[in-house]
């Protein structure tokens, strides 16, 4: 069954009150749409152009108010739902994951267990071009990396599209919004930009589900997702813990093992 039929079925039966999917927008881009009526489901599409992580909306009040929500999701979106459940931001009954495979066929995943099982069967590597750029950065000298990020971050305008598009950045009051004290400078000078992106990467360490929405959202084309991807890979390599694997919280930075291995502490 494809997304349109599935959405129609779910809405007609009243299984969910809204379906978060995609429709075609300006200049052919795919954008989120929230369908409430079965007769509107013909608008939905799900193709390689549908990249955004719709799990982002599972914690947003105007969308939550619509009722139980079904979401058409890629594996990163399912990971996001599991991580949000682990962090107690959403509850299993409130969402219905619709996993769409490359043929456009939909699998309904109503429970965390079902989502975990589905993910275990689905390979979802980081896109090749992102991996290639991360490898290139790893091969650079420290000074070259500094120059790379200085150059990229100089374009940052602190619009927070990256933060706003991230399903894991759900804090009602972000640390950036706190001004007593103003911990990280809001202005988009060199220091304000570096510190903001550093804070964000650390706050996402062990929580990032690798959807890449932050990098896609950036209006000035900074590959900001590489910071969170890289940190996520380091957390997995060092501690074997990964975000979005389960609805049971296993957060690397609030746990430890007495025999954690490092090479740099004297």
């Amino acid at each position: 069954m494809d997304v349109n039929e599935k959405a129609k079925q779910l809405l007609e039966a009243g299984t969910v009150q809204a379906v978060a999917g995609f429709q075609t927008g300006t200049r052919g881009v795919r954008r989120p749409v929230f369908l409430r009526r079965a007769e509107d489901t013909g608008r939905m599409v799900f193709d390689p152009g549908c990249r955004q992580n719709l799990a982002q909306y599972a914690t947003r009040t105007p969308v939550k108010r619509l009722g139980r929500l079904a979401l058409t999701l890629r594996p990163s979106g399912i990971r996001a739902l599991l991580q949000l459940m682990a962090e107690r931001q959403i509850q299993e009954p409130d969402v219905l994951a619709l996993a769409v495979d490359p043929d456009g066929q939909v699998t309904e995943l109503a429970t965390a267990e079902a989502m975990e099982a589905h993910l275990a069967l689905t390979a979802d590597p980081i896109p090749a071009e992102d991996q290639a750029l991360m490898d290139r950065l790893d091969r650079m000298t420290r000074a070259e990396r500094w120059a790379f990020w200085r150059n990229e971050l100089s374009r940052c305008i602190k619009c927070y599209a990256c933060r706003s598009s991230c399903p894991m950045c759900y804090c009602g009051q972000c640390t950036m919004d706190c001004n007593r004290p103003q911990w990280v400078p809001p202005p988009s000078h060199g220091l304000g930009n570096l510190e903001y992106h550093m804070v964000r990467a650390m706050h996402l360490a062990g929580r990032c589900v690798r959807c890449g929405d932050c990098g896609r959202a950036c209006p000035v084309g900074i590959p900001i997702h590489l910071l969170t991807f890289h940190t996520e890979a380091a957390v997995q390599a060092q501690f074997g813990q990964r975000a979005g694997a389960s609805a049971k919280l296993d957060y690397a930075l609030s746990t430890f093992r007495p025999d954690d291995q490092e090479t740099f502490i004297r």
Partner: protein
Amino acid sequence: MANLYQLSSTSLDALFAALRADGRRILAPTDRDGHSELNPVQTPADVARDCMQTTLSAKGAVFPKVEQLLGYRLAPGQVQLADPERRAEPTVLFGIRPCEAAGFQALDAVFNWDTRDAFFNARMANLAVIAMSCTRSDEACFCTSVGGGPGATGGSDILLTPTAGGYLAEVLSDRGRAIQALAPELFSPAPADAHKADLLAQVPVAFDQPALTAKLPALFDSPLWEEQSLRCLGCGACAFVCPTCVCFDIQEEGDKQGGRRLRTWDACGFSQFTLHASGHNPRPTQAARWRQRVYHKFSIYPDRYGQLGCVGCGKCTRACPVDMNLREHLLQASQAQR
């Protein structure tokens, strides 16, 4: 009355050289690292060949994303103010679009409304605009619906329109004439059959803006705004790329030795934009914030300043991570029953 000339494409090298010899910095769209943005350029070769529009607008030339308003150093018993001299570098904007040039008027309306903003005015006084007419447009553009057009002259000192061998050049102001005077031999009379309108992109009018502006007060409580803003993420991308958006924040940075006061871009889409110290937020929902964005540009600006707060450039639509297409939303509003 604009004077109409023609320039050959090769004459741009000499024009740039003349501008630089006159001590002016030239900002133009460039393709650097695959992104089209306004950057300082030396020669026409540095200018992006095929850039329909830059992502960010030209407002950064007169209203930078971070600007120091004052600085100070502290010593025992004294405060030394370092007031940055409000001297702006003489600058020429080359190749921006008519919609972006029109944006300066909307910025001026706010920055010179009651208090005259010395920082903005110093930069505007040192700015000249050589805009480039549009030979193509996309689905996000709607300049013709808001009183503009692909060849509109508002806000430009010289407007170039690409032709087969070069450009038509309309010299529109004293600043434009001053630039022409730097290299008058480059400006030959335009051919008698030059017809600018034939060279421009076609941008059909999308909606009746005066009717929409008249209708907006009645639509304040419409459920339309919640519906349109369901997917809005509440970031600041639209406000920051907009040529007319002018909201700013003021930040103090300092320590026991000294500090500075900075002005920086802000956006009404941010959830805490209208948060009061009491904890009350008059715009607590994204729907309220989205509605205010539309009303500010299409209802409040006309009331207060007698002009629109939107130039129809479409940058907001293109920059938006979730394709909040302003033209589409405005058309829907103009058709809304309630």
